[in-house]
């Protein structure tokens, strides 16, 4: 059963590598925040799985809980910060705030 | 009354996170959760329109299984769309707006989260009583606001 959980953890790491492509090459900054959020959720799961492999779940579960809270706060803070930047779209001004003619 | 609810929830968290049951740790828990509930109970449960928190909580727990079923449906929908070889012919995104009748803040928060978790729709923003929703296909856009609003009105505003 331990080898099965090791395989699960490796699969989760591969999926995180695939998501990292979106976090690096995302066209806008919001795409990168989204990729980081998905990676953080997977990391929370991965911490619990690591605890299960080492038979010390009672220790790793607190770290996982703190990581989930931190991931949520990072997402909220980063999206609140980038909300003020009106020209994230690389092709110029966007959809809700059209370009002013000047 | 809401001081007592806040105290009970905080003390439950204390027991869950400490995991020790001797007299010293329980006394520390009583003191600290009492202080926290004395200072910030009105932040935790600020909802002056609602009168009975307990029956609202029970009805919300009865609402959850239906929501879980909707989450399963929406995940299957997203899986189908993501693995479909001709995905761009299946989707047709639009942004729709609609007006809701829910009054209290907590009901609107629950409605926004429920819309996000049901198939094909995501809440973009809520301005007073107008919801901006991004729908991934015309069929999902036509089904808004659905039966969720009636269910939530029954949960939060019928006492």
């Amino acid at each position, binding site marked *: *059963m331990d080898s*099965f959980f090791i395989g*699960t953890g490796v699969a989760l790491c591969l*999926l995180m590598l*695939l*998501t990292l492509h*979106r976090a690096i090459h995302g066209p*806008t900054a*919001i*795409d990168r*925040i*989204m990729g980081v*959020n*998905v990676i953080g*959720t997977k990391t929370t*799961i991965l911490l*619990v799985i690591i605890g*299960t492999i080492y038979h010390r*779940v*009672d220790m790793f*579960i607190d770290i*996982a*809980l703190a990581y*989930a*809270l931190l991931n*949520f706060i990072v*997402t*909220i803070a980063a*999206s*609140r910060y980038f*909300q003020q930047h*009106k020209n*994230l*779209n690389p092709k110029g001004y*966007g*959809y*809700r*705030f059209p370009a002013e003619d000047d | 009354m809401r001081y007592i609810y806040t105290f009970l929830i905080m003390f439950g968290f204390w027991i*869950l*996170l400490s*995991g020790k049951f001797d007299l010293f740790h329980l006394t520390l828990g009583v003191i600290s959760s009492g202080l926290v509930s004395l200072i910030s109970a009105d932040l935790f449960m600020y909802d002056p329109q609602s009168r009975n928190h307990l029956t609202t909580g029970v009805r919300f727990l009865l609402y959850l299984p239906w929501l879980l079923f909707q*989450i*399963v449906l*929406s*995940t299957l929908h*997203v*899986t189908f769309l*993501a693995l479909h070889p001709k995905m*761009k012919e299946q*989707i047709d*995104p*639009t*942004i729709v707006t609609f007006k809701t009748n829910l009054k209290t803040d907590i009901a609107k928060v629950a409605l926004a*989260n429920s819309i*996000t*978790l049901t198939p094909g729709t*995501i809440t973009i*923003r809520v301005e007073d009583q107008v919801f901006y929703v*991004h729908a*991934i296909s015309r069929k999902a856009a036509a089904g808004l606001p659905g039966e969720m609003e009636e269910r939530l009105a029954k949960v939060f505003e019928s006492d």
Partner: protein
Amino acid sequence: MDIVVIVLTVIALLFFFATTVGLLRFPDFYSRMHAAGKGDTLSSLVILLALVLYNFHEINLANLLVAMKILLIAVFIFMASPTATHAIIDAGYESGIKPWAKNPEEESP
């Protein structure tokens, strides 16, 4: 009991895989948010349920505490994931990212 755990974990891994593929394939930011917000929630809940079942093999106080903490993480993800999705997509809408449309000449409200 192990069979149930293996089945639940494989289902959750399939949903994670579909989420990742959707995150890479969808044409615009809003559709990608659909994949990220929904697939992650259910697959996290399923895989945490599998871990609860695996860790709860014998009933005593320590195992009960561990199971309750894993369920606490599940409840937190269940509440936080739609909220984070909502915050990100609101930031994108406010900063003016244009949605992908099948017919570009048609103007949406």
